[in-house]
């Protein structure tokens, strides 16, 4: 059953006006440019991309932490963008977010207990802080501590406990482990997986690291310059990537195996600015596909189904690299 349904989500940031706000505005930044996906109840969608791909903006706009430019988000059949303030607040109880940086997302002047109590009070709920701490693997004694007394991994556990305190169904995890060391990252990933099973949670897991996503996601969507370029069940996308960008991303992950003799595809050039995306296929200036043609310069490839359940936005997806 579909829990969250995102349809043609668009978020543009208006360009600044020069000459003290009187001149012509600069080109708008097309952070998210027509993104659609659905997540079934109890499943995890991994949303992968590099800086500037728009993956974080998708997560924030879905929860209406930012207002969208266009598009629709349905959560349990409710149109999230059409709700008034009261009903939005009620809905927020069911959709929560865990942020990337456990250093800046906790209030330094609040104890762990105060941080966990606040959402309960806002939503008029009764909940036990010791039980929450226990669930995320922290001793009850942590309730009286301040964030500066905690390590990065412990802070992230508090961030997770805060999101869970109001018993949400859906959690956006925005790069929840990328600021953590490898050994601690594994602890937090395992915790997120356990909580999902225990509480039947649905996750949107945003990350830049394809190896991390592999360990948590059921489906994976890859973003490039505000668009989804490929979407498929996880096993399928890792075994048979259809889009040359996915292929290059996979090959660029450094493998902890000195004997790995894979063919590395090193992409040329930088990620273009989302204020001036290239014409046609946004990936064409960096695309290493041997079949790349004039068509890629002029005609934007739609995201289309190549094999059942496997979508890719490439004119040559039938003949992957």
């Amino acid at each position, binding site marked *: 059953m579909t829990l969250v349904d995102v349809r043609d989500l668009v978020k543009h940031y208006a360009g600044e006006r020069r000459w003290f706000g009187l001149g012509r505005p600069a080109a708008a930044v097309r952070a998210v440019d027509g993104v659609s996906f659905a997540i079934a109840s109890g499943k995890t969608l991994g949303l992968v991309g*590099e*800086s500037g791909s728009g993956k974080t903006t998708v997560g924030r706009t879905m929860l209406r932490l930012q207002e969208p430019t266009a598009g629709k988000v349905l959560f349990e059949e409710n149109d999230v963008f059409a709700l008034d303030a009261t009903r939005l607040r009620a809905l927020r109880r069911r959709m929560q977010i865990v942020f990337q940086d456990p250093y800046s997302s906790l209030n330094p002047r609040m104890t762990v207990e105060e941080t966990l109590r606040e959402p309960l009070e806002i939503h008029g709920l009764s909940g036990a802080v010791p039980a929450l701490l226990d669930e995320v693997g922290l001793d009850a004694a942590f309730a009286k501590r301040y964030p500066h007394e905690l*390590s*990065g*991994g*412990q802070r992230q556990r508090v961030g997770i406990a805060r999101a869970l305190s109001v018993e949400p169904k859906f959690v956006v995890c925005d790069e929840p482990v990328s600021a953590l*060391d*490898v*050994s*601690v*990252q*594994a*602890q937090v*990933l*395992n915790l997120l*997986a356990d909580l999902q099973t225990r509480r039947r949670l649905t996750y949107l897991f945003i990350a*830049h*690291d*394809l*190896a*991390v996503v*592999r*360990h*948590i*996601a059921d489906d994976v969507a890859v973003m490039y310059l505000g668009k989804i370029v490929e979407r498929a069940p*996880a*096993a399928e996308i*890792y075994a048979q990537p259809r889009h040359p960008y996915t292929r*290059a*991303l*996979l*090959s*660029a*992950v*450094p*493998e*902890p*195996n*000195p*004997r*790995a003799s894979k063919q*590395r595809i*090193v*992409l*040329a050039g*930088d*990620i273009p600015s989302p204020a001036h995306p290239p014409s046609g296929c946004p990936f064409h200036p960096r695309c290493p596909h041997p079949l790349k043609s004039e068509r890629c310069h002029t005609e934007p490839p739609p995201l289309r189904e190549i094999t059942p359940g496997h979508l890719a936005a490439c004119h040559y997806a039938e003949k992957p690299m």
Partner: protein
Amino acid sequence: MTGTEGPALLRVRDLKTYFVTEQGKGTARAVDDVSFDLYPGETLGIVGESGCGKTVTSLSILRLVPEPPGHILPGSVIEFEGRNLLALAAPELRAVRGNQIAMIFQEPMTSLNPVFTVGDQIAEAAIVHQHLSRKAARARAIEMLQLVGIPDPKERVDHYPHQLSGGMRQRVMIAMALVCHPKVLIADEPTTALDVTIQAQILELLDRLQNELGMAVLLITHDLGVVAGHADRVVVMYAGRVVETAPTSGLFEQPTHPYTEGLLAAVPRIDAPRSRLHAIPGQVPAATAWPTGCRFHPRCPYAWDKCVTQEPPQLETGAPGHTARCWLVTEPERRQAKR
């Protein structure tokens, strides 16, 4: 790539770098008795997590640790081509720093000066160390930009750092470091701040430049994947100590220290099916209060009473060039019993 025969280019022995912390909190023993060798032309990886002392080690080599609060203890030796860098007077050290030993940092944004053009910043070292004229130095800067793969170097030489992307800035940093053709390049997390496709570009560039220029590289990173693909030998650090040293293939095939073993198992693999990750329980202890005995014992699955009281020395594992600071080397049957 070269072997470990012949004299080392850089010898680090018993390096101790401590920091005095706020009153009452004691001394942070960030680097505590670290020894390793760097041979000409090789890439030596130093791996570890936050707080293990890998960055302080690299800063100590060029004496870039701020004093106070930091200080390098007497008895530490950092020998470059037979001279102890820790005993050099400031002008002699300056002749080495940036000239024969150069360094690139993690944050290309904060380590470039925003008010000078990239050309000026690259040319500075050539003017200071090689006494080139401004004109010759500018030509050298353009040459270096070309070498590190920056398109239109003649235009880019007059650009300011903010006009460049993150990957381009890291290329500029590399150009600055290599302008005097150093014998040793210290690269401290050179790709951590970059996206994965840009990281691949920078690592490929470093490999190519090392082949062309023949320098030795000290590659400091938290990423075992980066080490696997780019280092000849690896030093693993934990809690201010070197816990394992080995040729790269030996380390990955036969990790001996339980910390190395745990770290390797904790890395999410792109080629493994969805599964539970191995996690090392607990967390890195504070540098002001390292545990007694083996510093890893509170987190170690094999630890027994000896580990709590006696710290193991570096022990030869039997494989060439492979040492580990772990009692399991002397009692390997204990590892088998746990499995």
